[in-house]
C-alpha cells in the first residue's frame, strides 16, 4: 500500500523516484468522480461482455454468475457501457452518494 503523497519523506522514495509497486494506481478510487451510474437489467443481459471490453477504466467486472457489472470504486460514469450494450440492458441514473 503506497503511503499518501503528503506523508512521504524524501528518504522513502525509491531510487530515481521509481515505483516498483506495479498496478498500485488501483488504490486511487476514481469512482468518486462519477455523476452518473450504470445500472444493469439482468433480465435482459446476454452476458456478452461488450461493456467489459469497451470500458476505458477497467471498471467492469464479471461476477461468478457470468454477469458483467460496474465496479463502482472505479467507474467514472462515462456511459460508454450503456451506449454500446447491444441489447440495451444498461441504463444510467444520476448518482447520489
Amino acid at each position, binding site marked *: 500500500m503506497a503511503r499518501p503523497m503528503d506523508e512521504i519523506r524524501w528518504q522513502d522514495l525509491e531510487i530515481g523516484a521509481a*515505483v516498483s509497486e506495479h498496478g498500485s494506481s488501483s488504490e486511487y478510487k476514481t469512482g468518486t468522480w462519477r455523476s452518473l451510474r450504470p445500472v444493469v437489467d439482468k433480465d435482459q443481459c446476454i452476458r456478452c461482455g461488450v461493456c467489459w471490453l469497451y470500458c476505458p477504466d477497467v471498471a467492469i467486472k464479471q461476477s461468478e454468475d457470468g454477469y458483467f457489472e460496474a465496479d463502482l470504486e472505479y467507474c467514472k460514469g462515462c456511459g460508454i457501457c450503456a*451506449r454500446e450494450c447491444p441489447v440495451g440492458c444498461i441504463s444510467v441514473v444520476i448518482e447520489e452518494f
Partner: protein
Amino acid sequence: MDKFSVFSARLVEKGEYFTSGHRACQGCAEALAVRLVMKALGRNTIVAMATGCMEIVSSPLPTTAWEVPWIHVAFENASAVISGCESGMKAMMRKGKLPPKKINFVAMGGDGATADIGMGQLSGALERGHDMIYVCYDNEAYMNTGIQRSSSTPWGASTTTSPAGKVSKGQYTQKKDMPKIAIAHNIPYVATACPSFPFDLMDKVEKAAAIEGPAYLHILSVCPTGWRIPSEEAIKYGRLAVNTCVFPLYEYEHGEYSLTYRPHPILPVREYIEGQGRFRHLGSEDIDSIQERTRMEYEKLVKLSEED
C-alpha cells in the same frame, strides 16, 4: 461490435496490464486503446512512453497504473528510449549477462509526440531497424496541455491554437499522414486501428509483435474532452470515423497494402462531423469539401490495396 461476424469478447485476454485507478477523463478512448494494446501484448513487454495524457494519468507518484515495466523520459524521445532498451538487452543477452527472453519493446506517444516533436527520433528508430513497435495514439491535438492543434489535427477542427473565428475555419492545414511516413521507411509492418474495432486492433498489435523489426501502429483515439462530444459517444465517433472513411483501417505488411475493413455502405462524413463541437462552425460547403477529400484519399488507398 457491428460488422464482426464472430463476436468473442469473452475470448479476449482477461489480464489487465494497464489498470484501474488511472486518471484519464471520462470516456477516454485513448485509455481504452492503451488497455487493448496491452491486452494483446501481454506481460512480456517493456513500454517507453512519451510525455502526454497517458503518461500523466498513469503515473502520478507514488503509484502507477502499469503492470509491465514502464519508462517515461521525455516528450519527444520514446522511440529513442525504447531503442536503448532493445539494444541494451540484446547486447546483454548475447553476452550472457541476461537470460534470453522474448520481449516486446513498445514505444507509445500521442500525435504531438509522434507527428510533431518526436518525428525525427521516430524516423531514426524506424530507420535503424530495432525490433520494436511504435504506437501512436492519435487524438488529433495536444489534449494534455489543453487542446492545442498539432500537425495531426484535421482541417477545420477548432482547437485552442487553431480557433474558429471571423476569418478562420479552425485548423487550416490537412492532417499529416503519419502511417505513410512510417511506410516510407520500408519497415515490415504498418497499420491503422481504432479501439471502436477492438478485435481488428488487437489482431494488428499481435501481428506487429510477431514480426521481427520495427512496426508502426497508428490508432485513432477519440477524445471526448477535446472533440467536444459526450463521453458515452467516444466509441460511436471512432466507428463513424472508420465507416465514413475519414480514418480507414488498413495495414501494410512487407510491402503490400490491404484494407482490413471496408465499410458498407460508406456513410457520409456529415454524420461524423456533425455533433462534434470542434467542427460546429463548419458550413455545408466545408463539409462537402471534407467529403470530397475523404473520397479521394480512400480511393487512393483502395487502389493501392487492389494493386497488391
